[in-house]
């Protein structure tokens, strides 16, 4: 009977395991194998180059490190601005405010939209030549005409503009997770605090934030993983890497794969290095959170 039960269980998980193996495990193993080769992705012959691809990434490919830096900048803005915004909104919606369900729905609309669509819509909102120039018009209307700017064509502002749109697109996820976390905090704690004379700020600092720490770590890890891998929004907003100012790792990996002389081995090595960077960042975050607890 036990054996039958076990077999039954295996049968249930078999399709998922098969799909996972075919689409994740096998390509992952192949990717590992290809990092050691120079290969155009079409020919049957692959030239063994050992660790030369990694050597090139770490010693010569300044474009790659620039892209890591750009992704880091987007991530930093997302970790701070996006997550603080998401937390504050979740905190507000967790309280007894009017139309809170309406806000919940509204805040979750941006994350479910396609990144390319969001990029193109914001391009239309921001751009003065191709679009409606709404941001600049708004600035002029509220008395700041000197702040009007070509936001997407200036290397000094393009990455920040893209980062802020990325935050707008992504804060809904954080909002949802934070809200779920806030709802798990027992209300008796807040009532006791109120009886003891704690004000809203003290309640937030002494009860909400400490109890929300594991959720914050989870949101932070998800933000890092999502932001570091963003690229579709950039394609939608500026069409590409804009002289390197908006290049991000995924675009560099794609560039290695689809250039006139494609380098699949090199792209795999870039992917592996990038994966390792993400694992290290996530691990550090996890360790910090453990220490904090």
């Amino acid at each position: 009977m036990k054996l039958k039960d076990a077999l039954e269980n295996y049968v249930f998980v078999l399709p998922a395991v098969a799909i996972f193996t075919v689409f994740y495990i096998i390509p992952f193993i192949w990717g590992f194998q290809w990092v050691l080769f120079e290969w155009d992705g079409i020919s049957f012959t692959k030239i063994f180059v050992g660790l030369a691809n990694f050597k090139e990434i770490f010693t010569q490919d300044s474009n790659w490190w620039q892209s890591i830096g750009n992704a880091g900048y987007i991530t930093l803005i997302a970790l701070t601005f996006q997550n603080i915004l998401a937390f504050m909104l979740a905190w507000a919606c967790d309280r007894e405010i009017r139309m809170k369900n309406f806000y919940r729905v509204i805040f979750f609309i941006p994350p479910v939209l396609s990144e390319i669509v969001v990029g193109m819509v914001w391009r239309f909102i921001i751009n003065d030549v191709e679009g409606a120039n709404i941001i600049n018009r708004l600035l002029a209307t509220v008395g700041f005409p000197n702040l009007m700017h070509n936001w997407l064509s200036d290397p000094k502002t393009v990455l920040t503009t893209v980062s802020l749109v990325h935050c707008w697109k992504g804060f809904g996820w954080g909002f949802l997770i934070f809200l779920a976390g806030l709802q798990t905090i027992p209300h008796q704690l807040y009532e006791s605090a109120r009886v003891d004379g704690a004000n809203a700020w003290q309640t937030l600092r002494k009860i909400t934030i400490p109890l929300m720490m594991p959720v914050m770590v989870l949101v932070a890890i998800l933000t890092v993983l999502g932001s570091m891998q963003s690229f579709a929004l950039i394609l939608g907003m500026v069409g590409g890497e804009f002289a390197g100012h908006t290049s991000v790792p995924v675009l560099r990996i794609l560039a290695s794969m689809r250039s006139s002389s494609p380098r699949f081995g090199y792209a795999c090595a870039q992917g592996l290095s990038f994966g390792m960077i993400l694992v290290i960042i996530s691990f550090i975050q996890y360790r910090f959170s453990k220490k904090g607890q």
Partner: protein
Amino acid sequence: MLLRNILLSAFLSFSVLGCFGQKVDLKPSITVWHWMTDRDATFQELSKKYETLTGVKVNFELYAPSEAYAQKIRAAAQGINLPDIFGVLGDKMDFSAFIRAGHILDLTPYMEANNNNWKNTFFPKALAVNEFTPGNSYGINPGIYGVPIDITTIQMIYNKKLFMQLGLDPNRVPKTLQEFLEIGSKIRAAGMQGLVSGWGEVWMIDCLANNFAFNIMGQDKVLATIKGEVPYDDPDWIKVFSVFEQMQDSGVLAKGLVTMINKSAEQLFANEKAVFAFNGSWCVNVYKGMNSDLDYGVMLPPQISEKYPVSIWGGAGSSFVINARSKNKEEAVKFLIWLMDQDQQAYLAISTNNLPANKNSLSKIPEVLAQFARGMNYATHPNVWEVSESSLVTETFDRGIQSIIIGEKTPQQVAIEVQKIKARELAKRRAQ
């Protein structure tokens, strides 16, 4: 026993009925993979026509956008399950990789049969893109490996109405760089937008820069640079980079051009918000769809030097190749011969506003398309140069021009940067 007999009878009956019931299709069906959304409906029409004529079913399968199509073709090549007919989206290096891997049939015997009968119907420059000549640097056996279904030229386009608003004669286009730059100040004064193009996607920057390079230093020196015999910090190359700086300073380039995608550029030009566009002949169909009243003309890029002729990129627009492993390759060849015939080519050209690759079909096309077609006299293309630049060098080159336009770098700085990458790539190639 009875049960066994019943089962046996049932099995035999089903087997026999199954054999009779199965429709035996003697005519093969051909599968074509393509990415041309604007031509899909016409392809389907032509496919029906071909089936009526021959009984052979041709399945045109559309995979768009082109980026996704290019990835699909690669994945299919790796899995050796390419269709009977497909197109390789990429440059000659890519094309050669597919041939080397045995995916593409050499069409030379078919082209040269009956005294070059099929070959002679094409524009030679269109065919050249699909041809590998003896001693080519890709190491491919000489031959013709693809069939151009249309031709493309990439040129400057100007809006006649906006020209008149600027006080310019629409029948007298700027021929020299000086004349072109002078229009920039008029554009700026009128608060209009100048040249629009998909320079956010960079390859079109490369195209215009090459046009200028051919005019400034001639084909031989450009090719010598690709071979590594002339450095990119040569004064002639600095002059090429400087043209972009001059264009930016003059006001002839539209604002935000460096992050513009071609679809947006096409929209701006079609909506009469830009005086000039730099675009390929495919734009005729695009503009027609966006604004059928648009009145525009085609012109060559401005001439910088009188020493060498003006060149533009042109040749085969889209090409089809035949899967060398296909069991239907003879049928596929027959279909392509039919598709390239004068009548089918004219039908394709008229219904999709693309230039036909069959030179005998030209008489039936609209005037604006004919203007693009005349550009074929000035056409060249990286795919016919027999040497190709490293993608890393091209990327540095194009990014550098973007940096010049936004005033971040000088032409000299960009030239030095490109040469540095070129030297590194040459060293790497020599080491291999």
